């Protein structure tokens, strides 16, 4: 008979339920519109968050704009706002050469909130998520375990939005649930 202390705890690999840990709650975010905007030389413009510094974001309700690189923005909005958002891009950029790709079907968002959310994320994300290094309004592409994610922190609350590709969603969600349980 094997000593009970040597028997590893067995977790079911599938069907991970939302975590009940109040210090790090994981929940899938509702579906929404996301556009990937690439444009050069638009830093001087103020609308749509085009004037943000690199790795900064602005958010208002369901709308958000995150600058992920020198010429790349991820724009988000509610499910019914695709045409509105496209109209705003056209109004802001006029004839300027750009690329706008609708990635709403590619991206899936999971939110993790609570005082231990950052340490749960740090189970797979090597970034410094302290308030000094990753304050409110931070947004960046990074890694969570083996999956590439976009990590957004819209407000000073310990609430992080993890955007990943659809095919990575079960992995990312399962990873966060597991990490939140032990955070």
């Amino acid at each position, binding site marked *: 008979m094997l000593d009970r202390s040597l028997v590893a705890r067995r977790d079911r690999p599938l069907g991970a339920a939302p975590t009940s840990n109040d210090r790090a709650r994981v929940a899938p975010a509702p579906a929404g519109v996301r556009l990937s905007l690439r444009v050069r030389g638009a830093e001087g413009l103020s609308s749509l968050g085009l004037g943000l510094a*690199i*790795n900064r974001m602005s958010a208002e309700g369901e709308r958000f704009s995150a600058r*992920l*690189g*020198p010429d*790349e923005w991820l724009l988000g909005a509610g499910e019914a706002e695709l045409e509105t958002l496209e109209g705003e891009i056209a109004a802001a950029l006029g004839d300027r050469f750009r690329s706008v790709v609708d990635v709403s079907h590619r991206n899936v968002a999971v939110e993790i909130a609570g005082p231990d959310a950052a340490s749960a994320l740090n189970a797979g994300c*090597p*970034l410094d998520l302290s308030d000094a290094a990753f304050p409110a309004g931070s947004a*960046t*592409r*990074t*890694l969570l375990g083996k999956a*590439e994610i976009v990590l957004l922190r819209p407000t000073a609350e310990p609430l992080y939005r993890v955007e990943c590709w659809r095919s990575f969603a079960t992995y990312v969600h399962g990873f966060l649930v597991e990490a939140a349980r032990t955070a």
Partner: protein
Amino acid sequence: MLLIDCPFCGTRPETEFRCGGEAHIARPTDPSALDDGAWAEHLFVRSNPRGLHAERWIHAHGCGRWFNAVRDTYTDRFVETYKAGEQPSHPIDDARA
């Protein structure tokens, strides 16, 4: 964890980056004028120093930008990083003995 200073994003963990080999290799302006030896030299032969080495890196899981870095191949220490098209402020020819 090794930290790399992306010229666009600041100091970030190494796992977000990929290396793209030696930097500042100029493509011959008229490849068809080269013989096979000279073309092979351009494609495959690298300096491979023991010491400071200019390399191309991409912040693949970040801003997605290519940039250049001077790294010491002996200590694996990054001496400086700079944007593509710029020149390093460190002389990169002081290889170790």
